[in-house]
């Protein structure tokens, strides 16, 4: 057990779909925070093998269908994680459903024995997302039957050299070291097995690892089940803030209170695309101390989000009114739920007869699940429970036949009910897997139809295989909040008041305290793949001692220094991450086996005076030289030799010796 703490950032992440990945070492334990997949990298694969172009590959020019890799997709994990010995990981903390998509690779590895903690809701949604991925991947394989017996050719260097620079960078990473992160997908059994191995936590449930680390998951607001963590060991506290949203339209909001006044706050989200817009905005804010409620209950941010959703809804209804269909390949549960919510109150939509299909293997179960998890939905939705209404309106849409969930595009039931125009929600937003691929090909030349995608997905690469020249479909690209806005990071820190805040390097100079009251927060920055050693705190560990034991203490008062000291001996137990010393009933309170210790140089005249009190006579010999000697002549002859750090007592009888010492 040590009080040293180290942080290594293995991946800076790419927003909601692939959260960052960190390793934290504290208390002698190794904690992995999140184990994501980089699903945006799927775009390097062609959705359809062959079919487009003429096989003429060119590394120059814009990426088009011909530049993509025609092979069974592999999946990109955090490459540097493979450099870690899996058996050295003690604890894995998962902070969102997306943060566990790469976990089956880890849990199936030989030697993996870490304890994985994840909220019950994130585990459920995570498993559904994994199954979704596995089944869509299987569908892809079944359609195009690849020969999987050999090492994929695209991974050979000659092949990689032929790729266009953006694709190459996606595959190898900026520094060219990420090829090792690519893996063939795990199986459904791996996913099932992975979720069986995790320990599922209720909301803000305290859990204890090895009697030493106390951990607690608190809502981060970014998704149902997504959380920030607090970790406590021997009285030291750490807050781990992951991608958070203060006020969410569907999930329980950011839990601020429990993150306050920690020794260390680790902020894991780097600057990225959704921050860019706000960079110029205003980082400066007025110097009055920020208030929690104004930060969390940000009406302007919420109305912005609402406006955005309203606008998308109006675009959707306009498209369907014109006879076009709408394709919404979005994987974010929150966006789907809020769009459905918005559509269910939109009169243009409710008065029309346009059906909505939600097509994915996990769709039906995911929708059903969102209505039985009141503990993890936002306060407005919780009120629905208390008034006896369904948490989300989609239950009514399903009942009314407006919304239907199907496992796959080719399920016979869907084929029977299929109507156009329609609105289709489906994965996968990279436009490589699932129903999005055939539907996009079907509708892409219809000028009335609409594609709604998220900002941040490189549209050019995503749409590359779909014959952009003939693309007439409207494209609506929107960015949705998935993390704390840049301008709010500083006020957040001011509210949370950690002693030390550790931030990603790219936030340097972006966090500026203007309030003098906040200058007590020290800031430190970490960079990718470099182990950052946190300055060790000057405070010492906290410890509890049972009152039984304290009552057995034999205090000695040291006059010179106003100190009282006592020996302490007991059984140490870890209780809730805090050491507690209990008395040992089987041991006598004072134990002769421990050598006594003496401190300071005896003051000779005082020693002599003390001895005289006891009936011992003696004289001091030698005034200033060392050693100084006390000659004792009554009751027996004895010598006391005093040096700076040691004294030597010489006396013929044991009794006298004892008295002097």
């Amino acid at each position, binding site marked *: 057990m040590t009080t040293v703490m180290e942080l290594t950032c293995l991946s800076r992440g790419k927003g909601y779909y692939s959260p960052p990945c960190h390793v934290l070492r504290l208390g002698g334990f190794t904690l992995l925070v999140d184990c994501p997949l980089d699903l945006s990298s799927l775009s390097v694969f062609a959705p359809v093998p062959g079919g487009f172009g003429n096989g003429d590959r060119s590394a120059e020019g814009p990426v088009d269908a011909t530049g993509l890799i025609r092979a069974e997709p592999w999946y990109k994990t955090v490459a540097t994680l493979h450099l870690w010995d899996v058996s050295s990981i003690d604890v894995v903390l998962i902070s969102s459903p997306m943060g566990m998509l790469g976990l089956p690779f880890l849990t199936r590895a030989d030697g993996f024995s870490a304890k994985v903690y994840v909220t019950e809701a994130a585990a459920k949604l995570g498993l559904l997302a994994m199954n979704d991925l596995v089944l869509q991947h299987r569908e892809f394989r079944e359609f195009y039957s690849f020969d999987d017996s050999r090492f994929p050719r695209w991974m050979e260097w000659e092949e990689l050299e032929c790729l266009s620079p953006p694709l190459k960078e996606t595959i190898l990473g900026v520094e060219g070291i990420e090829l090792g992160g690519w893996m063939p997908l795990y199986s459904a059994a791996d996913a099932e097995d992975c979720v069986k191995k995790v320990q599922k936590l209720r909301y803000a449930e305290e859990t204890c690892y090895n009697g030493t680390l106390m951990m607690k998951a608190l809502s981060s607001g970014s998704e149902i089940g997504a959380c920030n963590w607090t970790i406590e060991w021997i009285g030291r506290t750490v807050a781990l803030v992951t991608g958070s949203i203060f006020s969410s339209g569907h999930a329980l909001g950011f839990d601020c209170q429990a993150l306050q006044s920690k020794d260390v706050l680790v902020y894991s989200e780097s600057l990225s695309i959704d921050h860019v817009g706000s960079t110029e905005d205003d980082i400066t804010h007025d110097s009055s101390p920020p208030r929690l409620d104004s930060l969390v209950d940000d009406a302007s941010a919420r109305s912005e989000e609402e406006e955005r959703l309203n606008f998308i809804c109006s675009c959707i209804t306009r498209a369907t009114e014109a006879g076009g269909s709408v394709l919404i390949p979005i994987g974010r549960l929150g966006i789907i739920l809020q769009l459905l919510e918005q559509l269910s109150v939109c009169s243009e939509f409710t008065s029309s007869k346009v059906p909505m299909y939600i097509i994915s293997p996990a769709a039906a179960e995911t929708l059903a699940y969102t209505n039985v998890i009141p503990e993890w939905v936002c306060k407005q939705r*919780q009120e629905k429970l208390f008034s006896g209404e369904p948490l989300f309106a989609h239950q009514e849409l399903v009942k009314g036949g407006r919304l239907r969930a199907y496992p796959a595009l080719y399920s016979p039931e869907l084929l029977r009910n299929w109507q156009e125009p329609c609105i289709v929600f489906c994965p996968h937003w990279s436009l490589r897997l699932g129903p999005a691929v055939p539907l996009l090909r079907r509708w892409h030349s219809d000028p009335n139809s609409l594609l709604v995608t998220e900002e941040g997905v490189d549209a050019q690469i995503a749409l590359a295989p779909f014959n952009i020249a003939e693309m007439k479909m409207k494209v609506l690209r929107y960015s949705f909040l998935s993390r704390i806005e840049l301008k709010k990071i500083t006020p957040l820190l001011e509210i949370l008041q950690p002693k030390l805040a550790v931030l990603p390097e790219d936030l340097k100079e972006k966090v500026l305290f203007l309030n003098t009251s906040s200058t007590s927060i020290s800031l430190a920055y970490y960079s990718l793949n470099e182990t950052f050693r946190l300055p060790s705190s000057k405070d010492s560990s906290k*410890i509890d001692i049972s009152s039984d034991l304290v009552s057995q203490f034999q205090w000695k008062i040291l006059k010179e220094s106003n100190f009282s*000291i006592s020996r302490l001996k007991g059984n140490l137990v870890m209780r809730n991450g805090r050491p507690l*010393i209990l008395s040992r009933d089987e041991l006598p309170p004072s134990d002769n086996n421990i050598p006594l210790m003496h401190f300071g140089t005896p003051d000779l005249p005082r020693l002599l005076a003390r001895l005289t009190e006891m009936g011992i006579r003696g004289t001091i010999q030698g005034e200033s030289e060392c050693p100084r000697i006390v000659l004792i002549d009554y009751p027996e002859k004895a010598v006391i030799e005093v040096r700076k750090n040691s004294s030597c007592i010489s006396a*013929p009888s044991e009794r006298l010796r004892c008295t002097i010492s």
Partner: protein
Amino acid sequence: MAIECLVLGAGQEVGKSCVVVTINGRRIMFDCGMHMGYLDRRRYPDFSRISPSGDFTAALDCIIITHFHLDHVGALPYFTEVCGYSGPIYMTYPTKALSPLMLEDYRRVMVERRGEEEQFTSEHIASCMKKVVPVDLKQTVQIGSDLFIRAYYAGHVLGAAMFHAKVGDAAIVYTGDYNMTPDRHLGAAQIDRLQLDLLITESTYATTVRDSRYTREREFLTAVHKCVEGGGKVLIPTFALGRAQELCMLLDDYWERMNLKVPVYFSAGLTIQANMYYKMLINWTSQKVKESYATRNPFDFKNVRNFDRSMINDPGPCVLFATPGMISGGFSLEVFKNWAPSESNLVTLPGYCVAGTVGHKLMSGKPTKIDLDKDTQIDVRCQIHQLSFSPHTDAKGIMDLVKFLSPKHVVLVHGEKPKMATLKGKIEAELGISCYYPANNEMVTLPSTHFIKASASDVFVRSSLCPNLQFLGKNTDDNPWQFKDDRVSQGVCVMKGNEEGRVIHQGELSSLLRQEAHDVKFAFCFPVQLSSENRWTGHPPGETPPCPSGTCSLVLSLLAGLSSSPVQEKIQVGEASLQVESVRASICAREQCPYRVGDSQRKPELVYVCCEWTSKDSELAWDVISRMKSVVLTLPCSDS
């Protein structure tokens, strides 16, 4: 530091549960129930004992409600809306969702049937429930600076929880009602092994030990089946929630299996609406029910329909669930008046009925007539089936829980006095835990755990946390290696003035005190006889001595003299000295030795031995010295 436990309700009775516990100065009200057996002021706990001034918000840190039964939540709207408490209130999500249904049902029965003036209005219920903060199971909630509460699954009814409350180092658990065995829709109570000063537990079935639930369920189903087969009507009086859903699941399942077509009805108070809540709260049911929902929500009852008052005297068999349970009034009493006179009908009764209700009268003996009031008398000819499976734990379950938690003290509430006395005796005799069962308005005061806070140095923490594994030898086959990890911490506790204590490793003491360690050594130089043949003459003549002064031979000779010492095997032999532990003996070559006390004249027949040691080895040193003193040293004959 103390814990005070003031029982305002459910002391030596069942009804109006309300216990106010003060832990190290923090005050929590557990449950705020009403007594169904009284109509006067005795129906509510005597709140004036909490605060004579009536400022309840200042007097309490929070209220915790364990579950939605009226004997636990019934007085809450009265307390918040009429008495004016406005502090925080905590309950689980299901309890917050379902309590208003129970309260509203009760209010309606009181006003419509009894024509009584209402104690609280629908608006009261609504505004009271707005103040409630819902909590999840195991969620740790911090209230103020040092009060922490946490809910644990209690079984009993949907959302029922036991609550753990902790202030500083003192901790208690208040169980509310709980069930230690799973039932049709709920799991068994579950709690961590906590360190507790006090456990406050219900004791409804303080002396009953029940057998298998399965046979009891079968008896119920058989009785119902027989009745409807004979064309009779079955009245199942229940409260709107809990038992109704449990029995309904049981019947729905049985109807399905037996392919029965007899209608099953829910009366108006028991709306299908209630099932809606159950569907949303399915995560709070048992694991088995939870797992089945992916395909079909088990609270979507297939065979259940709504009942209308006009159908009371319709011909033909049926099963009817009607509120309230215990037949204390309302629709269940109305139906009872109509159906009781016929032998072919059946009325089921819950396992427990409060005194004063029709249910209670039916349970006590086999009455043929029941006087409702001066003018109304009911002929009772129908069959009575008492449900013997109950959502409460039995005596064995209570004992198991007490044993599992091993608190320092137990307080029994929610039971009958004589049975509580028996259980108290059992807990004290079998578990050695002191136990109390105060009556209403009595207070029990107990000491609370208090740990002394100290800071610890890194060196100390590291030294105490390194495992001290002791190998205990090979044992059985399934556990071949046995180890004991007995971590003993040794250190020094330092206090400066009145500051917080600091625990450090012994080695750090000197730097902390800004004083160097001062070693106290003991030394003694004493003469030993040399044998006459080998008088000390300096170097043996003519030979190169094996070592300067021939001391090595003298040392070996000394060693021989210690051969009978118990520490002989531990003696280390140096060139001119012997050492055992800290005791070091060497041949003293000095003319004037400061440690030679008394006559220091050198004599040829004497060799001086200098001994040094530290205080811990005093005894050993004296033993060695006395042995050496009696030795006669010899030098091996040199070649001369």
